[in-house]
């Protein structure tokens, strides 16, 4: 996939569009213009009209829109209803990070999409976790990580079980499975006999063969 991330991106986007086109009913289109369906309660002293900002009296009203109070001068109710999006936006999160849609059906945060998407999301999530587990295990066993990630990604639990049944093996040049590398924390030490510098974990001098006292464990240790 490193070869053509752009192609992959295009593919995913295209599939996304297609899927939505066929799969989900366009929610906004279904919606008819809302008459005032919102519960109405009376306004409290101290509240101000959302539309024009005048102080309200008990004569005035408050609509409960999406669980939020919208205090309104009695005269202004229609003005509000005719342009809800504009006046209500003061009580909504609207920005780059978080967003609420007024027109989408209550309870739905965004576009209102079909249940197929829910299953798709669950599948991706399970794939990520399955892929992660499989790759993690494959790395521990010295197996190739990329194919196992994708096996786990696509058939998650089954893929993971498959990795679990694989025997460990050490790839060429890597640290054998079951061993971990310990970072060296010491400079090399000089041989007392000939002065040659040796790895601090060496038991024999590489130049003269004299026995050395290792000052630390080998870089590779058993887990």
């Amino acid at each position: 996939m490193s070869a053509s991330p752009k192609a992959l991106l295009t593919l995913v986007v295209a599939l996304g569009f297609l899927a939505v086109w066929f799969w989900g009913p366009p929610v906004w289109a279904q919606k008819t213009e809302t008459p005032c369906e919102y519960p109405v309660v009376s306004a409290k002293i101290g509240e101000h009209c959302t539309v024009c900002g005048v102080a309200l009296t008990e004569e005035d009203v408050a609509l409960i829109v999406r669980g939020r109070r919208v205090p309104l001068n009695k005269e202004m109710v229609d003005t509000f209803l005719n342009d809800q999006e504009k006046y209500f936006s003061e009580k909504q999160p609207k920005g780059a990070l978080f967003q609420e849609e007024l027109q989408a059906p209550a309870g739905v945060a965004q576009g209102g999409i079909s249940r197929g998407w829910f299953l798709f999301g669950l599948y991706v999530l399970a794939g990520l976790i399955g892929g992660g587990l499989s790759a993690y295990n494959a790395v521990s066993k010295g197996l190739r990580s990329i194919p196992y990630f994708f096996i786990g990604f696509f058939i998650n639990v089954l893929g993971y079980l498959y990795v679990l049944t694989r025997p460990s093996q050490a790839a060429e040049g890597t640290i054998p499975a079951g061993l971990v590398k310990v970072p060296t924390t010491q400079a090399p030490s000089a041989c007392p006999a000939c002065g040659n510098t040796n790895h601090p974990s060496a038991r024999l001098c590489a130049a003269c063969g004299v026995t050395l006292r290792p000052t630390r464990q080998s870089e590779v240790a058993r887990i």
Partner: protein
Amino acid sequence: MPGKQPQLSFGAKIKQPIVAVLNSGLFIIGDLAGAPVIKYAMAQGYEVIEHIATLPGAIGGSDPEVYDVVVIGAGAAGLNAALQAKERGMRYLVLEKEQIANTIENFPEGKWVYAEPDSQPPKGKLWLDGASKEDLTWRWHQIIQENQLNLHTMEGVTACEKKDSIFNIKTPRGDYRSKRIVLATGQRGNPRKLEVRGEERERVYHRLYSPRKYKNENIIVVGGGNSAIEAAITLSEQNRVFLSYRGSEFSRIFKDNERKLHEQIAAGKIEPLLNSNVVEFGEQEATLKINRGGSEETRRIPYNHAFVLIGADVPRQFLKALGLKMENEWEGSLWRSLVLTLVGFLGLWIFGGRFGGHAALGGLDLSILPSWIGILVWAAGLTGLVRFGLKGDRFAWLGLSFFVWYTVYGVKIGKGEEFWPYRDWGYKFLSFFNRPWSFWYTVLYTTLMTVFGLQALKRWGLDRKDKFQIWRYVSLLSFQWIFFFLVPEFLFQYAVKYQWVGEKLASDPVFAQQAWRSYGLIYAWPLFFYTFFYNPHQIWVVWGVLLTFVIIPVLVLFHGKRYCSWICGCGGLAETFGDRWRHLAPKGKRSIKWEWMNLVVLIFAAVVTVLVLAKDTYASIADPADLGIRLYRLIADIWLVGILPVTLYPFLGGKVWCRYWCPLAKLMHLQSRLFTKLKWSKFKIVANDKCIGCNECSRNCQVGIDVMNFALKQDVLDNQQTSCIGCGICVSACPMDVLSFGPLVQISSQPLSRQAA
């Protein structure tokens, strides 16, 4: 990667294995191409020749004067390439400016050369194993002799020209012609020398590594810049240091260094010798001439080691003359890009008239223009940007990036509130298939994060076999899918519909009709600024307080700021979509200073929040509270988190928001700093003594931390001194396995995995 113009810069390198410049026959390998260690450099030397051998007309030809390949630089990469060229029967020549393996010859005496990384066997004919520097170079000389390599030492290349597909290579001693060039000059630059007698002695160094190795010795440091001062300070902890500088005062050094320097001078550990010049490095003593206001004094100082740290000469001119671009160089015209970007918007303004926009310029109604004119103007602006961008104008790409993200976020703010030129039509226009633009934005965000997240997962986790990074990327992507997709789009609805939350909550409109509050499940105040506004249900208030003031601090206690690199969606986009540009993050002390900005945002958020919460009690603050929210929304929630940082991704890396403006990051940083100071926190990065100063760690830190500086000195890196978010990229990137989280491995202690979190 033929066809791509490589960009080079010192201390910040490109990372392709072998780089060919625009199919020109010039290949760059080794350190210069971003290979940080000998083994990689050797592998590239081998591979580049194998690659060249497959090209048309690689070997032989009618003109015996023309070489098949000239290798410039006789380091690990160049030597291995030459050996392979010989093996392949090519006509080749190696040109070396100084001596064979000059970089390695300049290592300190007896330095142990590590053959990292162990996961790869060495390639080619050159020998490599863990060995002392002397051993290694001795073996290399033998191999060169055995193979009778065609190599000229003391003959640096000064210029290169291409004419009729043949390169003309100039050195002070002659001209050479060659079909192809392998450039393997390393990029250490050459440390500047004093040019005094005795400077070539083994005890005189031009770089500082493992300063903690020296104890109770007399050390002379020469230089007056930050690197010399820092070296003197670190060395003075265990030694007696003389700091010689030819100037009359240490100007242009960092405040912190100045303070520490004065401390060490006061403690008698550093003796500063201003207005001084080294005349000679003797066997035991160095001779210095010190100018004391007219009279000159000669002083002899006995020394064990001397460090001459007076900068390096970087061959920028030479490389530029070869047509190579330096990374992060801003070429092009800001004004032209500005105008073109504006033209693009202007076109859309005219175009928007058809869809409900109002384009009017000084009484002139532009909406009467047909919309195809708008499209034409728009296309003219954007093609202009792309054209100049392709020609190397970086400002043009900046303009294009701004165009895209300004559109994305300037429209997302909402119907009727869109920024110019989208006012009153953009939102509707971008609501494809009858779904709101904000929905498509979420789709875009999640897609970008997933696609590029898998790529980053491959780069850092799968390719490097790094379990820590595998988990980190899985975590980031999973949080995105759960909390930005499954929960707000579906699970919250289901929880209400099927009354999973209980009948009472499910039937309370204040709870049930505010699905968007489920973002607050993991987004904490003040990042989720709206936690306490707009009639939240009590349960959200309780959760919000718990999250911000209990859960996050506990997380910080154990994991520092890992929220940013494991959980958060903003950080998530930076770590995935922004990953390819991570090396562009602003570096250096000045860039760190600007991190005060997120404190301002934090205070801003806190003040507005208090005003809003209090406005029901004190009617007089209602107006400032409303104004505060409106301003915060516009400044922080659109410009600082959206338009600006994402526009800057390809130029300053992905973490501009997280590092400079995110109030939650600051809040966590303050907590982490406190916990570190109290010694409660366990979060830190430690280094062993294998660091070779390759800069890979600093280069890849998206928060712009100079990790190398800590590693070279083996200092502990924690949240008291840096704003590290614990992403572990530096640990993964280090080719020498220098860095690790958690405590330093003690001699003969239990083995510890590098992945220990």
